């Protein structure tokens, strides 16, 4: 195993899939000559050429629409949205087209499409450039939504996504690109739609994903010093949602905290909590807690922005509350 960054892991997955399958190509703003605004596709343009690493105009709906069309012809486009905030400019093509065509035409149309988009707050980019709108996209049947929290998962899941015949939104987190982790060598995939236990424990179940996995792991370490052992379930895929590891863990701990970066209202935590209440009510020993972003558009000022984002202490406190509840 090699210890590489999330950026390298994603880059490797793209590179290897492009080497493996000539129908895979990349399109997006600044993916080519610039090398990707987050340097994920650095070196791709020189190696694969402008046909397969296509710089586009600033035209998000055009990018996603063209990717859908190309996918319908059997190609495997990986469309990059410079940030997930610009997905709103392509919303119709994502939710009304990509998520619907296969179903609406009775299964005739197949779209092997991946949309990569980076999201997340914490970099003082202001209200329109700092969002974590993952839950919105997970709302739509017909679209799959993947959001890895480790380099190994990122690589394995992205490879699966590229090989999949369904439209998949692959959400990366801007502050995770530098994160290092063990990544298996050679070809491997991780199935889409499978949650996993990232840390074993017996006292409280934390359900989380993406950046908040890192935060939750830190909270777990801190709590462990006090003798509290949390079990962390990483969703990895928001839709289709795999509740099995969550329920299995919960039936053991009887207490849960759900940690997400996005807003609490109508969010991932709301969905998971409801599912636990629906499917494991008899096991509930304490009210389920949610840790999430404060209900404000994110401000530029650093202190205010940090106040609004979920922190390690918030998770620690929520775990204590469910233990006392």
């Amino acid at each position, binding site marked *: 195993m090699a210890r590489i960054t999330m950026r390298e892991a994603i880059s490797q997955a793209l590179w290897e899939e492009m080497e493996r399958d000539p129908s895979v190509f990349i399109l997006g*703003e*600044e993916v080519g*000559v*610039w*090398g990707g*605004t987050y340097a994920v596709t650095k070196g791709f343009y020189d190696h694969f050429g402008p046909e397969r690493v296509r*710089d*586009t*105009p*600033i*035209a*998000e*709906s*055009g990018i996603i629409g063209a990717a859908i069309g190309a996918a319908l012809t059997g190609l495997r486009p990986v469309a990059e949205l410079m940030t997930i*905030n*610009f997905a709103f*400019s392509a919303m119709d093509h994502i939710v009304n087209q990509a998520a619907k065509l296969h179903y609406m035409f009775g299964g005739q149309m197949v779209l092997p499409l991946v949309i990569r988009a980076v999201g997340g707050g914490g*970099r*003082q*980019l*202001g*209200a*329109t*450039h700092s969002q974590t709108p993952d839950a919105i996209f997970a709302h739509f049947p017909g679209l799959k939504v993947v959001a890895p929290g480790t380099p190994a998962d990122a690589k394995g899941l992205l490879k699966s996504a590229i090989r999949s015949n369904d439209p998949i939104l692959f959400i990366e987190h801007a502050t995770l690109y530098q994160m290092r982790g063990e990544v298996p060598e050679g070809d491997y995939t991780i199935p889409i739609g499978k949650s996993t236990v990232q840390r074993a424990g017996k006292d409280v179940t934390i359900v989380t994903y993406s950046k908040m996995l890192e935060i939750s792991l830190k909270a777990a370490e801190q709590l462990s010093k006090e003798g509290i052992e949390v079990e962390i379930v990483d969703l990895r895929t928001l839709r289709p949602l795999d509740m099995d590891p969550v329920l299995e863990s919960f039936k053991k701990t009887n207490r849960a905290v759900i940690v997400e970066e996005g807003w609490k209202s109508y969010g991932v935590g709301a969905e998971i909590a409801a599912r636990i209440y629906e499917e494991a009510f008899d096991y509930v020993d304490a009210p389920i807690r949610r840790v999430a972003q*404060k*209900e*404000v*558009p994110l*401000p*530029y*000022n*650093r*202190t*205010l922005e940090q*106040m*609004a984002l979920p922190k390690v202490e918030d998770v620690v406190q929520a775990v204590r509350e469910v233990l006392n509840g």
Partner: protein
Amino acid sequence: MEKDEYLRMYKEMVIIRRLEERSAELYQQGKIGGFLHLYIGQEAVSTGLISARKPQDRVITAYRDHGVAINCGLSAREVMAELLGKATGCSKGKGGSMHLADVTKNFWGGHAIVGAHLPIATGLALGDAYTGQKNVTICMFGDGATNIGYFHEALNMSKIWNLPVLWVCENNQYGMGTAVERASAVSEIIQKAQAYGMPSRRVDGMDVVAMRQAAEEMIEAIREGAGPMLMEAMTYRFRGHSMGDPERYRKPEEVHRYQENDPIGIFRQYLQENGIATEEALNQLDDEAEAIVEDAVQFAEASPEPQPHELFEHIYVEA
């Protein structure tokens, strides 16, 4: 134009230049965060353009907005304070570099989603037309923004409703690292205006006097009911797209060639050659501009951070 007006414009350009040079330093020191897009090289565009507006004319632009803010009459203090995220900033520290605004000065903001403010400009003009006011909306945007649907929707609507908008494309020849020819089917943005039956004009955006004159003519024609028009200001940004741009997409020689064509240098020469100002007088203005910017930096650094409760303010008008 009166002599004083020339000198005021010159000083404004120097204030913008110094303010941005200082903000680049403050960014390196970690005192400014997020994205910082410098306007250096493009000062003549907004200075000439906005000097031709009346106070009731509205201005709206993209995230490259520091110069536009100064030209609209925001103080260097409140601009610098916003860059530092202070409570005394024009957007109370909540907006940052990309989101300067002061609606009392009819500056309707810097906007960070490419092209998104163009349909809003259509609406600003609609508001004025609806109430019968003879105001003009000046909407500024980059060359890259003319490739997104918003641009086309906005131009088309402004034309069918004959709205008083001056669309101003700042063609600095790149949208991030993508040259105009690589992103746009036509390399002259005025051709896009022609497609919507809109009068248009290409102007030397490095020449503040040319900008001023073209803007005066177009704004007054629009005010008199000529309908929307598009101006394409040919310019160049001397710095990267934003701080930290590796600039792999253009050669240093190309940048140097344009830097020799500095809009402030050109204007200085014009003022001297036409006997409008002496070198000493211009140096004096440089010193004054420098002092204004230094005062702004001190003011911003000494200003308080927003209070924690500010986080929850302005989410809604009504609680």
